[in-house]
């Protein structure tokens, strides 16, 4: 704010001085110089044009044009504009065309949003990463802003929650902060000052002016009890002074799977199934293996290699001294790569932002976004319990996609009236050997047509800002998010196999609503006297959110069985109509906050924050929490002893400490309430009778989880063209809310919660940037690397580990564990030590008493490590096998342009984590295998890492959680490669355009990884558990961009 103020004054000064000196100079010999100033082909309004070493100058008008009377002797113009490198240009006759280059190296001119205000980056003392509209421009828009952020900043781990279009992503700022359970690890989004605690799918990527990620406590504390897991500030675009501008951005392209798995073909499958059965003493499954060939490729049936995707966005903006506005409309449509009929996404959005000067000192502004999203989803992804992905992996390759053999069609498998058939009336193949939830995906898709969910979001704010005296601003902001979402779907009567069917059709409509709002009042006073510069912020806020209400109605047994005709209007008996509704009590926060920014000569920097939050989630005895922070900075390069040199141009050292909180700890855990639903069926008529009993014991002391963080870093510019930013942090969360495992004999139905556990995250973050112009080639590259070490340090007195919030896998039970001294939810299981090649090896594996350690083992079975050394293999031998949390995340962006051509490459990745590869269903004996099964142990010396296959698996080779299931999660992904071409200005001028650019983009072009599943990018509360993850698509897009 203050910067705008300064620059406005500066312009005024230039204007006045040019008038003044113009008058003085009129006596001398004059000549007129004129021209235009542009950047990236766009006229720059308000750029300063001054004759070198004089005070003669002007500013460009709305069209970037200037005209200036200068002395005949004048040789050089100095042209400058905020954020661009100042240029000296020789005065020439005729129209001068001056192109300014954006200057990312001038640290001191970048302004960042710090929450409730902005600050020059050069005097900021926190760890804040900024992503600008320009950074986002090249990033393909897949409808989710989280994906656009991936790889662009340090300290932020982002993994898609599914490749389903429109899916949200898991975001972790500086690691896992809480033990979750209530979304405690989710970042707080603040969009134009509106705190958004839930989904931000409504945001339209091209509407975004900038994104700031607040990472250290010294920056976060201004958001107090809601900030421990990080805050992401989003600012949407505003109109700029100047002519009305019209822009269009669009793309169209195709998506396809980046990878498919190699499953066994029919002959290989039959061979292995027989081998397994015979090994278990059972009769072979297939009498003649030789009749089988390649068989059915189920993946081929589910993947769409030409899934379409388009995106169109139009924006209109403009403004003058009084008012400005930004209006945009966007529409996006994406087909999923898995069964696009039942996996697609559509979004339409409108935004209007405007600001008006009501009176001299009073400004009113508003931002308002509306979006409508419609999503059709597979119904079951990243689940081993059915759905197209899981079925395609587990189904046998022998069953045909469509059964055409008349003997089979009229056979017992297809007698049910509701077998799903193709357009020719032939039944989709039903597997007689792989049952359960593994169903023909083509048939499955037919049962899900006509099911869709939708969401409407209206997010906006209005603010009134009053600036009675210079430096003082009083601002009041009212923001709301009004969200409606729901589901509408018809489920027909169907029969997919003997265990999966539906006997009564139904049509369901559910509708939900959230009305969240916040009211904030702030007073900011900035003052400079001498070299002292300070800004004081005082604020007060009230927030209400997370208060959904909703209802759902189902009509069963309607007289049609196809989705096109399904309707709620059919007359059916009242007994076939069921419904329910719910109310969620609101989450409320009441806050007071203040901040002092001080700097001396932009050399010695200080920021102090204190915030007090009261939250409705806190227990009676701890209703309010106080969150203080401070940070200091020292700009060495401003010191007089620092000599200007060409090696180290700028250096700032900064450090801070702060306390933040997490109030997402669930509702009413501090009260002892009576819970219902402990029902029992009474009487012949099966009357379900309501039963009630107390829930968990009360804990009135319940309070926020507190995160204390120290951050030390520096920012520097070297050799004029290099930037290095470095941060080290140590973040400790104390009093993590944890269900207290009270003894079972207490008889509590739920567990009481208490602030128990502690956890630390430590890491370093390095951002490197390089930008240089080589003749006509502009080249820039920026890279970032973050490390993270997560460690649980305390779980309660004498408690070494906990079993709550673990990830389970099928019949294995928990496959992760949270333990003191290890990372949160690390992979926990048996360690394999090769395979017994023969009986001698089994007999040689003995304990100190000479007894066999694995008495039942056979050649071909895993040798389990007796990690506790007690001579037997038991659960006590389970041990640390790796962590799903990456140790490293990194990103690399490369930009270059030459004349009209430009190229952008974005790569990102993670390393140091493990992924649980759980694609195969364990309890279905005849599930298919990936072709790695061909390398199984079949005799001495055949394999030392893939055990023998047998239906009994008495050694638990596959049934036990072990390192066999874990793979390295390291990957490096060429996320974006983009080639662009902007037509020459002379050409675009002819059609009245400022800019015309075309581009070709490849998204998710290639992934370097050793992981054997579809995709190593796996989000989720505990990331890295792959049960058949919907993979990210590979997409090629053609794009166009016009500016008028």
């Amino acid at each position, binding site marked *: 704010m203050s910067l705008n103020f300064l620059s406005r004054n500066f312009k005024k000064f230039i204007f006045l001085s040019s008038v003044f000196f113009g008058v003085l100079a009129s006596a001398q010999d004059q000549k007129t110089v004129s021209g235009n100033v542009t950047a990236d082909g766009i006229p720059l309004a308000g750029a300063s044009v001054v004759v070198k070493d004089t005070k003669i100058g002007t500013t460009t008008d709305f069209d970037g044009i200037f005209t200036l009377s200068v002395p005949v002797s004048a040789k050089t113009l100095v042209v400058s504009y905020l954020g661009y490198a100042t240029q000296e240009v020789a005065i020439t006759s005729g129209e001068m065309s001056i192109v300014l280059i954006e200057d990312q190296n001038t640290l001191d001119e970048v302004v960042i949003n710090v929450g409730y205000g902005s600050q020059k980056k050069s005097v900021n003392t926190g760890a804040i990463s900024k992503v600008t509209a320009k950074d986002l421009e090249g990033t393909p828009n897949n409808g989710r802003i989280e994906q656009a952020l991936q790889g662009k900043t340090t300290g932020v781990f982002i993994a898609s929650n599914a490749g389903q279009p429109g899916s949200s992503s898991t975001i972790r700022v500086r690691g896992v902060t809480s033990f979750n359970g209530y979304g405690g690890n989710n970042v707080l989004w603040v969009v134009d000052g509106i705190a958004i605690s839930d989904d931000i799918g409504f945001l339209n990527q091209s509407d975004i002016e900038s994104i700031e990620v607040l990472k250290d406590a010294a920056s976060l504390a201004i958001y107090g009890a809601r900030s421990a897991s990080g805050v992401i500030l989003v600012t949407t675009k505003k109109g700029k002074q100047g002519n009305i501008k019209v822009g269009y951005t669009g793309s169209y392209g195709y998506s396809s799977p980046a990878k498919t798995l190699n499953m066994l073909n029919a002959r290989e499958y039959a061979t292995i199934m027989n081998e397994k059965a015979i090994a278990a003493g059972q009769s072979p499954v297939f009498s003649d293996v030789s009749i089988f060939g390649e068989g059915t490729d189920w993946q081929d049936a589910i993947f769409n290699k030409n899934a379409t995707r388009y995106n169109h966005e139009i924006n209109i903006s403009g403004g003058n001294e009084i008012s400005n506005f930004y209006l945009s409309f966007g529409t996006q449509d994406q087909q999923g790569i898995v069964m696009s009929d039942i996996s697609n996404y559509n979004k339409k959005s409108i935004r209007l932002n405007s600001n008006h000067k009501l009176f001299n000192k009073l400004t009113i502004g508003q931002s308002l976004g509306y979006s409508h999203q419609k999503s059709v989803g597979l119904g079951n992804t990243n689940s081993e319990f059915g759905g197209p992905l899981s079925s395609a992996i587990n189904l046998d390759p022998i069953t045909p996609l469509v059964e055409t053999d008349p003997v089979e069609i009229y056979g017992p498998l297809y007698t049910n009236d509701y077998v799903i058939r193709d357009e020719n009336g032939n039944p989709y193949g039903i597997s007689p050997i792989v049952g359960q939830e593994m169903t023909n995906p083509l048939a499955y898709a037919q049962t899900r047509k006509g099911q869709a969910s939708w969401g409407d979001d209206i997010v906006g704010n209005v603010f009134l800002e009053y600036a009675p005296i210079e430096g003082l601003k009083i601002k009041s902001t009212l923001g709301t998010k009004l969200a409606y979402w729901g589901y509408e779907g018809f489920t027909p009567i169907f029969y997919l196999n003997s265990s999966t069917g539906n006997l009564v059709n139904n049509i369901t409509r559910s509708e939900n609503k959230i009305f969240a709002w916040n009211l904030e009042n702030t007073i900011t006073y900035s003052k400079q006297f001498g070299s002292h510069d300070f800004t004081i912020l005082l604020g007060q*806020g009230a927030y209400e959110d997370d208060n959904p209400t909703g209802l759902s109605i189902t009509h069963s047994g309607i007289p049609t069985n196809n989705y096109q005709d399904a309707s709620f209007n059919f007359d059916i008996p009242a007994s076939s109509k069921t419904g329910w509704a719910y*109310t969620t009590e609101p989450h409320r926060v009441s806050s007071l906050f203040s901040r002092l920014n001080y700097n001396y000569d932009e050399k010695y920097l200080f920021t102090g924050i204190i915030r007090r939050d009261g939250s409705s989630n806190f227990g009676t005895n701890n209703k309010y929490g106080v969150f203080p922070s401070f940070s200091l900075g020292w700009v060495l390069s401003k010191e007089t002893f620092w000599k200007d040199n060409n090696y180290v141009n700028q250096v700032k050292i900064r450090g801070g400490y702060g306390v933040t909180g997490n109030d997402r700890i669930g509702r009413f855990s501090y009260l002892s309430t009576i819970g219902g639903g402990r029902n029992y069926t009474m009487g012949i008529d099966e009357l379900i009778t309501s039963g009630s009993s107390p829930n968990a014991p009360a804990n009135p002391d319940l309070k926020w989880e507190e995160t204390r963080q120290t951050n030390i870093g520096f920012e520097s510019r070297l050799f004029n063209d290099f930037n290095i930013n470095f941060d080290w942090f140590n973040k400790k969360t104390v009093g993590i809310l944890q269900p207290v495992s009270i003894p079972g004999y207490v008889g509590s139905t739920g567990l009481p919660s208490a602030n128990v556990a502690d956890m630390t995250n430590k890491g370093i973050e390095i951002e490197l940037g390089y930008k240089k112009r080589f003749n006509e080639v502009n080249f820039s590259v920026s890279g970032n690397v973050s490390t993270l070490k997560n460690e649980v340090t305390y779980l309660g007195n004498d408690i070494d580990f906990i079993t709550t919030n673990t990830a389970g896998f099928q019949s294995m039970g928990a496959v992760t564990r949270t333990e003191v001294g290890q990372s949160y939810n690390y992979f926990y299981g048996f360690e394999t030590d090769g395979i017994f090649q023969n009986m001698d090896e089994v007999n040689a594996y003995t304990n100190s008493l000479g007894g066999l350690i694995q008495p039942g083992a056979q050649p071909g079975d895993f040798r389990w490590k007796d990690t506790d050394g007690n001579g037997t293999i038991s659960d006590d031998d389970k041990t640390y096998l790796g962590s799903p949390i990456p140790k490293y995340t990194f990103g690399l962006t490369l930009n270059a342009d030459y004349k009209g051509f430009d190229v952008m490459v974005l790569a990102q990745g993670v390393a140091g984590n493990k992924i649980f590869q759980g694609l195969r269903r364990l309890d279905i004996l005849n599930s298919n295998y990936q072709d790695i099964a061909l390398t199984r142990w079949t005799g001495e010396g055949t394999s030392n890492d893939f055990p023998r296959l047998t239906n009994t698996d008495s050694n638990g080779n596959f049934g036990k959680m072990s390192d066999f299931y874990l793979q390295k999660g390291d990957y490096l992904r060429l996320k974006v490669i983009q080639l662009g071409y902007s037509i020459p200005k002379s050409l675009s001028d002819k059609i009245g355009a400022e800019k015309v650019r075309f581009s070709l983009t490849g998204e998710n072009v290639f992934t370097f990884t050793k992981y054997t599943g579809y995709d190593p990018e796996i989000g989720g509360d505990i990331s890295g558990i792959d049960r058949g993850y919907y993979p990210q698509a590979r997409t090629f897009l053609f794009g166009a961009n016009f500016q008028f």
Partner: protein
Amino acid sequence: MRNFKLYSILTLLSIAFIASCSKDFIEVAPEGKPLEALYYQNEDEAFSALIAVYDVTRKNSGGFENMITMMNAGSDDHFAGGGGATDGVGIQSFSNYTESPTTIPASFWNDHYQGIFRANILLQKLPAVDMSDALKSRFAAEAKALRALYYFNLVRMFKNVPLILEPLTPTNMYEVLQASPADVYTQIENDLTEAINDLPASLLSSEIGRLNKGAAQALLGKVYLYDGKNTQAAAILAEVNGTPGSPNQYGNYLLTNYNDLWVVNNKFNAESIWEVAHASTGSSHWGVWGSGSDEGNSVNVMVGPRGYVKIGSTAPSLPDGWSFCVITQDLYNVLNGDPRFGATILDLKALKIAGEADYIAGYQDTGYFLNKFLPRSSDVSTGTGDAVLNYRQNTYIIRLADTYLLEAEALGGNGTRAQALLDAVRSRVGLSSIPVSMAAIKAERRKELAGEGHRFFDLVRWGDAASVLSSRGFVSGKHEIFPIPYLELENTQIVQNPNY
């Protein structure tokens, strides 16, 4: 202009004032979840609390970890089965006697204590509830009888259990010690004795499903038998059994047709003394499976065959199941030729060989399935829940044939009354009389009650477990009881059972 400034400042300040001063703003009260301190005011609330005590009896046949399939799996009559060697680590490891404190499902401990807690809090709150004394004593009797059942299951499964008779508080919950089994039995017997006094002999038709005097007597008889008090057992069981072969004082008699015991619609039939009710209308789904709002029978889906396809007309119409509790060849041989064979065992192996049906072999497949609880296509729920979780077959905790044989056992397996009791059980299925003896009673129990979850407890009570189950890995002096779940030892005074 000046006025406007003043006005806007005032507006801003007043907004700030309103929002910051309302401390009540962050006081949000729960809706529809009464506070414990304000509950238990009237009869409706007390009844709701009583239903919550009944709720836990679902443990017999609801949820993946239910008593019937678990106890079957550890007997010589069944294998655990399922999809694979690790399909249900708890049930598998009990079946092959490798159970450990970490594999034993904690729910067999915790769920019963939840029932006990709910009984305890109701008994604590009842005196202050605004309702008639007669009703209060009936509610208390039901709570005590249910508490007795839960302790009986606990003491049989875990033997060394804490005896908790009133709600624990955070200050004393870690001080609890295990009680001697004798004390637990004494408490169970006292609870049942008191319950018998206050329970009604007969129930109104609107009350069917609640406990009557006969149910408590039957359980008490069984408890006495386990407690070695055979004389008392025989006496109280005689009250329940009446004249063998004739209706007892509560109207119970052996159904004429043994198969009718397994007809789903025959709920609360004349032979049933205490049964657990299930409903298909409960809309149970995976999210609540095994919890208090799950009203479905889970034994059904668990014991059904996998990938079942009916081919011929003689094959039954069955939905799919998970092939748990497959029947051993041993039990097949015992029942072969017995009139109860068909009701107990579905020989799918034979049907498959005959080309009448097909199915996918599960783990430890024998081809013999537990017909008493097989899911039926006609019985698949059409409600809004997950069909496989909403079977409605009720299961018996005690039925009259059971109490007949228990009394005959309590009588030492000899004498005319014991003979008459055994004869009645046999003649109902058309078998002739054989001389009564402990051996005859044991053999009859195995056949009559096969697959109903009694066999393991019977073998242990008779002292036969070690010899009968040794091939399964049963170790005498260890495997008669379960290990205490691992977490129960954390921060508590609980001592692990011997040899675990």
